[in-house]
């Protein structure tokens, strides 16, 4: 019975195995990015970026149908344009990052909607919006795995400046010119991982597998390495459980995965050992020193 529910779907169906592999790749790449988004107080930036890349993906879809490469390229172009323009404006003018991003992503969204309405076909756009991880083919899976690998390598390269810039930006400016490039590269990684999550989770939920695991991790670890590990593990857990849930019920895969992650998050708020609510209610006696 347990075997039938939890393991059999993956043994019997190739598409389930592919979906699981894709989710693991997405978790490995996206969760660490999510941790940095959270620590840099940019959690909502991920969401704004998801909106910003939507028109690019839609344009790709309109030009060449349901072709992942066209959609990915469109998404990357729109996302990079918005991310870099917003980043440059925030760093050269008085406008803060959030405000500058908001203006650019709204413009991008408006442009995208204009393009879509001019072409007049939006039948399969629901697919773009909500994704379908169960229809993942080999080339798509390879793209997802490739992007996750690139993400981890690049993140390793910019890790130190990214951490130092998060905690003490003025100091980094006095010892290195790497701060701004590292930040822009990080924004690019956000875009890559959002686009990566397209096929599996859809444009709007792609950000969920980045931010929710990061939120979960904050309740279980006090240091950044621990947070990243916990975020990746909880993203994989949510992905696996979400696939099982989706297979056994009629819930689409994307929402199923994010709902499981949300359940884990609520559990973490309640029972997490770093300032979880239950822990705060029963803190134990205070210490001697």
């Amino acid at each position, binding site marked *: 019975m347990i075997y039938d529910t939890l393991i059999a779907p993956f043994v019997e169906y190739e598409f389930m195995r592919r979906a699981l592999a894709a989710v693991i790749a997405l978790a490995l790449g996206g969760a660490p990015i999510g941790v940095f988004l959270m*620590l840099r107080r940019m959690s909502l930036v991920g969401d704004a970026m998801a909106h910003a890349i939507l028109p690019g993906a839609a344009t790709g879809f309109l030009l060449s149908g349901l072709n992942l490469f066209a959609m990915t390229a469109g998404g990357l172009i729109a996302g990079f344009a918005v991310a870099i323009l917003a980043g440059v404006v925030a760093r050269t003018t008085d406008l803060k990052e959030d405000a500058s991003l908001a203006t650019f992503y709204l413009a991008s969204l408006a442009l995208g909607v204009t393009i879509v309405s001019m072409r007049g076909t939006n039948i399969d756009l629901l697919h773009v919006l909500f994704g379908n991880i169960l229809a993942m083919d080999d080339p798509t899976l390879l793209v997802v795995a490739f992007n996750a690998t690139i993400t981890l390598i690049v993140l390793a*390269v*910019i890790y*130190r*400046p990214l*951490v*130092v810039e*998060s*905690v*003490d*930006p*003025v*100091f980094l*400016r*006095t*010892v*290195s010119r*790497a701060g701004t490039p590292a930040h822009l590269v990080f924004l690019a990684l956000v875009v890559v991982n959002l686009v990566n999550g397209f096929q599996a989770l859809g444009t709007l939920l792609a950000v969920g597998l980045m931010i929710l695991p990061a939120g979960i991790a904050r309740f279980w*670890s*006090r*240091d*950044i390495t621990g*947070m990243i590990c916990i975020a990746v593990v909880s993203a994989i857990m949510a992905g696996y459980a979400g696939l099982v849930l989706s297979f056994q019920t009629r819930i689409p895969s994307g929402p199923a995965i994010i709902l499981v992650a949300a359940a884990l998050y609520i559990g973490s708020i309640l029972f997490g050992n770093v300032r979880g609510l239950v822990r705060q209610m029963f803190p134990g006696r205070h210490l001697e020193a």
Partner: protein
Amino acid sequence: MAARLQFRDVTLGYDRHPAVHHLNGEVAPGALLAVVGPNGAGKSTLFRGIVGILKPLSGKIVAGDLDFRDIAYLPQTAEIDRSFPISVFDFVGTGLWRQTGFFGGIGKEARKRIALALASVGLSGFESRTIGTLSGGQMQRMLFARVLLQDARVVVLDEPFNAVDAKTSADLLALVKRWHAEQRTVLAALHDMELVRANFPETLLMARGEVAWGATAEVLTVENLAQARRMCEAFDDSAAACVVEDSPSQAA
């Protein structure tokens, strides 16, 4: 090589309004210079110009053969995200940036140096605490430990003894004197005139520009301090573009 800093008719400011107006002068290598003046006199602005995070509106700050990495800077209100999950050890370790850069490892030797720096500021035993758990004085000690590790030829300290107790400021002052003994150039913005008179041989008194610059006893006279206090603090929105080259007291 001598690490001298030269100000050539430097004007620093914000939105074209000068906060430091037509400053000329030179900081000799190995100098121990106190920068004093009322709030808003331009001390922090001058320091930002020296470390290169604020570009002069006109004029030039010549650093000679100094690379920007040769200048260690301790800002007045460090924009540190104290909620960030980083340990005291790792934070202080970033002071080794020049050796480690992006990617270099922290080896045995470096670990020893970090431990030593923490010991010199009296923070041994704090290595694995996250920075958010430190008190104000401990935070300042930790920042000094990082400056120690930066091993810079020029050290710029913006009001380093603000809001720290007597014991901490005495400990940190001892570090400043040690840097001076090691021939490093030290610039410190300070408000405690007694402390300046007792410890700093050279003083620059500022009020939007130079009021007096030289040996501390000659600079910190009653007349000079009174003159510095008279300067006007507010920007004049309708100020005309400055064409006068030789009247630093007509600040904006």
